[in-house]
Every structure is written in C-alpha cells, then in structure tokens.
C-alpha cells in the first residue's frame, strides 16, 4: 500500500512528532511504500539544521535524515510555512536577504501542490499533530 504522511507537530513539543517518525519506520518495515512525507505548520521546524537537541533525546532531524538516506524518502517541507518560521534554503535566504540558511540535507522546500499530488497518488494519507498534539 502507498502511504503519504502529513506532519503538523511541533518537533520538540509534541509526542506526535516522534510518533510520525516511528509510524513511518514501521510502514516501511512492513513493506509498504511511503510516497511522500509532507511537513506542514510547525513541523517545518523539524528541518531546521540548527536544531541541537540534547544527546539523550530522540534526534528527530537525524532520524528523518537516516530514513531518507536508506529509503530515498521524499521529504517535502511546505515553503510558505517554512519561510515564515525561518527555515530557509539558500535560494530563499537570498530572496529575503537573510544572513544564512538552515534547511537540513535530505529535505526540500516546495508548495502545497506537492501535498495535493501526493493525496491524489496515495492509498492512505495519515496526518500527525497540529493544535491538539
């Protein structure tokens, strides 16, 4: 079965951020396909390369990057949500005249169209997080 994940969890405030990563690992372990992971709302903060969690905490960023490497996951970060929250790639940093950029390797910035296309192509769309966890 082909899955798409939509994540809206704030990465270091909501358990669902970790649940999403664990769910994704399990879906892949059971032989399903993950078509796309779409980071929306506060979840775009997951892709901030300047995140420096404590060493004894689950590193969400590293977890996603490892999974991306192993399975060539398509990790898409909503560009409108990201630039508002200061998650920029080099191109956007130039456009907004910011001093640096911080989009982590393995992620790409793109629009909501990527989510619409993924919804159209997937058997299941599973959403995590948002206002109530």
């Amino acid at each position, binding site marked *: 079965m082909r899955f798409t994940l*939509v994540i809206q969890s704030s990465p270091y405030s909501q358990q669902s951020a970790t649940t999403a990563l664990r769910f994704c690992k399990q879906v892949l372990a059971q032989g399903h396909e993950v078509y796309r992971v779409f980071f929306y709302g506060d979840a775009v903060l997951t892709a901030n390369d300047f995140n420096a969690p404590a060493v004894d905490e689950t590193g969400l960023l590293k977890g996603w990057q490892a999974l991306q490497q192993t399975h060539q996951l398509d990790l898409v970060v909503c560009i409108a949500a990201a630039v508002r929250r200061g998650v920029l790639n080099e191109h956007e940093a130039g456009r907004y005249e910011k001093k640096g950029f911080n989009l982590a390797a393995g992620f790409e910035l793109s629009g909501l169209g990527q989510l*619409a*296309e993924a*919804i159209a192509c997937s058997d299941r769309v599973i*959403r995590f997080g948002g*206002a109530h966890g």
Partner: protein
Amino acid sequence: MADKKSVLLVNRHPPYGSNMARDTLDVALTCGIFDLPISLLFLGDGLYQLLDSQNPKSIEQKSLQAMLSALPMYDIDQLYVCAEDLAERDLTPAALYAEVKVVDAARLPELFQQHSTVLTF
C-alpha cells in the same frame, strides 16, 4: 471504498486561536487547483468557521471568509456539517455563511465510505 479518487477533508478546528483552520482550507483550495474532487466536513468547533460576520481584526487576524467564499470557484461545493454538532452549539444552517448539507452523526460513516481518501485535520 469508492472507485474514483475523491477526498473528504474533515475540518474540526475553530476558525481562530490556532492556524489549523486556515491550514486546512489552504489544503482544500490547493486540491481544488489540482482538480481533485474535494468535500469538506465541518465537525465540532469547526462549525464556527462557517459563521457569518466574522470580525477577527480585533485580535489582529485575517478573516477566513475570503478563503471560504473562494471554495465554489475551486469547484468545492460539497460542504457537510453534523446535525448533532449544530444542535449542541445552538446553531441552524441559516446561521452559516455557506450552503451546507446537514448529516446525522449516525450517517457519517456512510459519508466516509463515499470517499477514497479521508483526511482529518
């Protein structure tokens, strides 16, 4: 499950207080641009999104009504609300900004089954 691709977006969040309502409507409109058949179901406090005469300026927020009124232009004209949720909030369809279909809670599973994808926000 329906053969043809169709999406039911379930919208449960009040219009202001968090970005959830706006983000959900953004997804709906974008799916509309991509010609995905979309229906919207407003549950619980999500009903308040449909109330007329919203004035969020006083809390320094933009109104959702521009997005809601754009729905028909994106061919999103299937709006559903739950009868029990309306009654609980002492609302009637006449109080709502858009034309909606009222569904009893007991019939909601049927509505879910009519769509190939159900995405709950």
